[in-house]
């Protein structure tokens, strides 16, 4: 589904990703972990097409197509979804209006008929159960005045409505208390199917207690320093990121490009 080859990217002329290789097949859950500044969020934003990030080398194939050539909205309509680390507030636009608009844009893109407000209301009610959100959230402006946890739940609600093929969750666990984490993770688990895939970007192992990854990739210095199964996350939790970075330094000491 997703094939990242030798991806180099950065912002304002600073290279952050220095050659990422990653393959994601449908039905898989991948965790991207790493210390602050390792490039995890950059990877998420590059996949979503954030305009401030510049890709300097490499390629990303999504269902065989060149993802990097697609505009952010085109990627979304093709089924790529990013849950934001800091969801944006959109004053004056209700959650329901926004979701219906986004949902219908996608249906139009697939050549399907748009849903009218009543039809959509039923669908929304159904999907809102996934993240245990009540109706009052639907008439409120998108994310405006939402607590941190509510914003994250709202991201997963959007995911539930849009049903992406590839979801990239950028630190969706950050700032969540244990109850909210359970709800959010439970929501994601309900949305997993053999036909879609999820990339979890996270700093902490605790999210992975709830959403169990098939693969764990640890980023350090803009590269994947280590890969493994879910047990790698536990090892990390125990030994800390210093273990990876020191490993990374000793391993790549000779071959690393001079800065």
């Amino acid at each position, binding site marked *: 589904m997703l094939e990242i080859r030798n991806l180099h990217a950065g912002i304002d002329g600073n290279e952050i990703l220095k050659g990422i290789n990653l393959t994601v097949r449908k039905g898989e859950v991948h965790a991207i972990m790493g210390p602050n500044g390792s490039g995890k969020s950059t990877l998420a934003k590059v996949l979503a097409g*954030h305009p401030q990030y510049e890709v300097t080398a490499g390629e990303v194939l999504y269902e065989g197509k060149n993802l990097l050539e697609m505009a952010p909205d085109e990627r979304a309509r093709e089924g790529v979804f990013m849950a934001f680390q800091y969801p944006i507030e*959109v004053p004056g636009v209700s959650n329901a209006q*926004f979701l219906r608009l986004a949902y219908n844009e996608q249906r139009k893109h697939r050549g399907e008929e748009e849903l009218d407000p009543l039809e959509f209301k039923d669908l929304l009610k159904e999907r809102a159960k996934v993240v245990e959100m009540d109706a009052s959230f639907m008439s409120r402006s998108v994310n405006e005045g939402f607590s941190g946890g509510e914003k994250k739940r709202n991201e997963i609600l959007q995911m539930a409505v849009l049903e992406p093929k590839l979801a990239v969750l950028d630190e969706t666990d950050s700032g969540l208390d244990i109850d909210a984490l359970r709800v959010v993770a439970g929501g994601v688990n309900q949305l997993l199917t053999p036909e879609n895939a999820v990339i979890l970007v996270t700093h902490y192992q605790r999210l992975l207690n709830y959403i169990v990854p098939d693969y764990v990739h640890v980023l350090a210095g803009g590269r994947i320093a280590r890969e493994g199964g879910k047990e790698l996350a536990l090892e990390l939790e125990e030994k800390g990121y210093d273990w990876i970075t020191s490993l990374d330094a000793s391993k790549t000491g000779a071959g690393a490009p001079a800065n």
Partner: protein
Amino acid sequence: MMVTELVKTENQYLTAFRSVRELSPTAPWLELVRSGAIDRFEQLDFPTVRDEEWKYTNLAPLAKEGFQPAVARADAALASIERFTYPETTGAHLVVVNGFLREDLSTRMGLDDIVAIDLFSAVADARYNKITRKYLARNANYRDNGLSALNTAFLQSGVFLWIPKGVKLETPLQISFISDTKVSNSASFPRLLVVAEENSSATLIESFVSNGDDSHFTNAIAEIVVKDGARLEHYRLQNENRKVYHIATTAAELGRASSYDATSINFGAQLARHDISVVMDHEGAECWVDGLYVAGANQHTDTHSVIDHKQPHCTSHQLYKGILDGNARAVFNGKIFVREGAQKTDAMQTNKNLLLSAQARVDTKPQLEIYADDVKCAHGAAVGQIDEEELFYLQARGLNPELGRSLLTYGFAEEVIGKIKIDSIRTQLDEVVLNHLQAKLEA
């Protein structure tokens, strides 16, 4: 050449004024007011950019144009008045064409408890002579304002709205002021006097529109008196054609514990200027002075507001938002005075502007003058563009950039539009703000 033209302009208004006197004789006191007013106009003329209050709005082109004052009621039929009607009024709709109330086009369903008649006739009517004399030209000062003077001099019709004590008007009353531009290059001077007596309540929609696409000069005044305990909800919608010069004054005075909720929406005209003032000279009054201006290519829109807290325990809320595209130009000047002794004043003013193009420009100037020490006052102004992070967020949900920008613009305007209690007005405004999104946003 220039000089000849200027002389000609002055003459055209002065000449027309002689016809006013001949065609519409009136009570001696109003004759005095009108001739006093034309004298003031002769002395003051149109304001120029040297006048601080007109620094950013240049009326020289207007002064030069040969607009001919409409001095007689036309009886031409007007096609489909319904297109200007808001259904919530359920037939309470007065129609004023080029300043003259047209009984033949007006409908008066549900207005039995109030008086809604021709202002000029009311002056001559023994029942209303006293009240019109007391309140006419009281809040809209013509002595130091050339444009108000011009409107006052041409007082030949207009609307007098009197809501008696304790009367609660159930349905909104609409007054449409139509500029009939088929009468080519004409000038009109719509005038409205509203007196809401003690503990009455009403909703008023003033709608300014054009019939036809040609040029016109509208110079309108609304004077509003809200007495003790009365409530008035006032919508003012200006959507004249893009060749019209629209100059207007709204001047309100509030009684004890009264409430005045004004929402002014400006979309149309090539040049629109609205002066709105609220005087709170009795304790416990509360007002909302909100507005939205939307201007595109070659449009200029200017709002000047004055909120005058003269007595203690009054509250004022003000939110004005502007959306500017193309080479549009906007001016917002909001003054709040808190006079000596006006303790426990609560005054809040916000002006926010959204620029959708690099050529658009706004000059905003909030002004707070406080002469009391126990007050709560805040004001702020902001000018910004579409936020790129917000736009990316919408794009990441599949909205193309154009749709995303429209949605964000809609959201920006919604803070003002959303408070409007009349559905058909809200729908119409949503449509104007983003016509192509309208159908999709009913959720």
